[in-house]
């Protein structure tokens, strides 16, 4: 009996020990998961990270960088002598913290673009800029249908008007989306803080001063760049919801799906359009919509459909038209895109590519695809911080309005689809 009790006791102790071990390992696993997801977003120095960047500071930074961009970034020469709006539009993170100030870039009182300045010291001063109208200019359209609580910035090109209940309306394509609970940005936060420290150190503390000599000396130098001229910048303009089946709709005719053909077929069409002069824009988009299995709402569900859709383009075009194009396109996905990969594609090979970005892992949000046509690498000589900015065609507008420049890493995950044109 004593032996039995002893065995039972030992068994209970063993069980207890096993539970303890299980808890320990599980907690460890959970912590690894959380750290893996958020380590890049976590500030190293909490006390200085959340010191607020005031609108006045942001305005000076915006103006300084607009002048610097006009001299240093291809395609932005017209921003010389441009001004920025006095009152910025504030964007929030889903957790309620301020994340970005949007300034309208004005030249002779006309809107020539926008620039997003970080409202947080753990993000680089410039988040993105472009020649299109500021995203917030569409807020009135949203207000016609919804009560807007605040504006959200979820990462590069992912901005929305918060309408409550976890829903937001994207400020570019007006789609309704569920926004994530938390957003992480895959940038070097320590380097960002160093950049801000440099700016604040050199900045004239007198906010009423017109002088920005100090802050100008904190701007970076362009240490490397690459740009592919001749990549079209366009969007889809044919109507949708028509009773015309594919492939009869291919071209300018209305499509059987929604008005919006989808960002991914449009982004890929610009990459293919760089190589081929026919078929026309709408035909390329419609065929890619089919080969990429893009759904009627314009959503391309999975990364694997993107490269496969590009692979099958030439064959599908031949199937429906009987004609051939001089290239056989080969798409390949890179699930871990790096700055070196971007340089290789743009500068070494001269190949534009598709970049599909998602913002925010702790919630559900639909991402966006763009065509990458160039990059500039900004190096801050004071602290050695290096940032890469991608020049992209955003798929929402035609021509210059469709050109934006986004910070590399201003997303949670990104997958690149490289395209090789074999003749």
């Amino acid at each position, binding site marked *: 009996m004593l032996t039995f009790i002893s065995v039972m006791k030992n068994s209970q102790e063993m069980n207890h020990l096993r539970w303890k*071990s299980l808890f320990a*390992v599980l907690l460890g696993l959970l912590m690894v998961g959380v750290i893996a997801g958020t380590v890049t977003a976590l500030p190293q120095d909490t006390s200085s990270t959340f010191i607020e960047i005031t609108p006045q500071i942001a305005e000076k930074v915006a103006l300084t960088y607009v002048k610097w961009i006009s001299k240093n970034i291809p395609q932005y020469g017209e921003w010389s002598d441009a001004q920025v709006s006095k009152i910025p539009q504030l964007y929030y993170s889903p957790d309620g913290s301020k994340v970005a100030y949007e300034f309208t870039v004005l030249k002779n009182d006309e809107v020539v673009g926008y620039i997003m300045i970080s409202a947080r010291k753990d993000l680089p001063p410039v988040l993105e800029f472009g020649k299109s109208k500021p995203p917030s200019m569409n807020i009135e359209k949203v207000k016609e249908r919804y009560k807007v609580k605040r504006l959200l910035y979820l990462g590069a090109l992912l901005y929305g008007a918060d309408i409550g209940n976890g829903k937001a309306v994207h400020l570019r394509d007006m789609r309704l989306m569920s926004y994530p609970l938390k957003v992480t940005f895959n940038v070097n936060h320590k380097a960002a803080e160093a950049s801000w420290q440099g700016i604040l150190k050199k900045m004239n503390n007198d906010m009423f001063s017109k002088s920005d000599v100090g802050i100008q000396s904190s701007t970076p130098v362009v240490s490397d760049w690459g740009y592919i001229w001749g990549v079209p910048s366009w969007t889809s303009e044919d109507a949708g919801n028509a009773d015309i089946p594919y492939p009869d709709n291919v071209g300018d005719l209305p499509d059987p799906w929604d008005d919006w053909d989808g960002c991914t077929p449009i982004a890929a069409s610009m990459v293919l359009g760089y190589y081929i002069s026919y078929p026309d824009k709408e035909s390329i988009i419609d065929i890619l919509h089919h080969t990429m299995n893009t759904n009627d709402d314009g*959503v391309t*569900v999975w990364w694997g459909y993107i490269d496969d859709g590009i692979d099958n383009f030439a064959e599908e075009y031949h199937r429906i038209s009987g004609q051939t194009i001089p290239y056989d396109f080969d798409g390949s996905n890179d699930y871990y895109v790096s700055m070196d990969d971007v340089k290789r594609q743009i500068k070494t090979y001269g190949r534009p590519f598709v970049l599909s970005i998602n913002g925010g892992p702790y919630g559900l*949000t639909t991402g966006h695809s763009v065509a990458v046509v160039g990059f500039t690498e900004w190096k801050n000589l004071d602290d050695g911080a290096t940032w890469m900015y991608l020049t992209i065609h955003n798929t929402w507008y035609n021509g210059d309005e469709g050109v934006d420049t986004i910070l590399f890493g201003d997303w949670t*995950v990104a997958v690149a689809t490289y395209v090789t044109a074999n003749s």
Partner: protein
Amino acid sequence: MKTTNVVVAILYGAFLFLSFLYFILAGSAIVDYLGIDKHLPSSLTPIVVAFISSIIFTALSSIPLVLTKRKGMRKAVFILFLVSFTFYSIIVWFFLGFK
């Protein structure tokens, strides 16, 4: 149900929720690189992606169970797979994508 079981379930649930995008990305990369999707009807691809992603999740999250040599491990692993597969399928079908 024991409190400890509830706590373990919550911990696993939190891990599943926090890490889903990374596991789906890894699953997608495997399916894409191996060209598995090219041999299947396109409508089946999301299911295959969810399946591979949940295999990876189950393999990783089973490590604590293996290390602690818990009783009923097979059942626990099966439940982990089932829950992750269901969750990833919902994500891949209804929420993933680019517009």
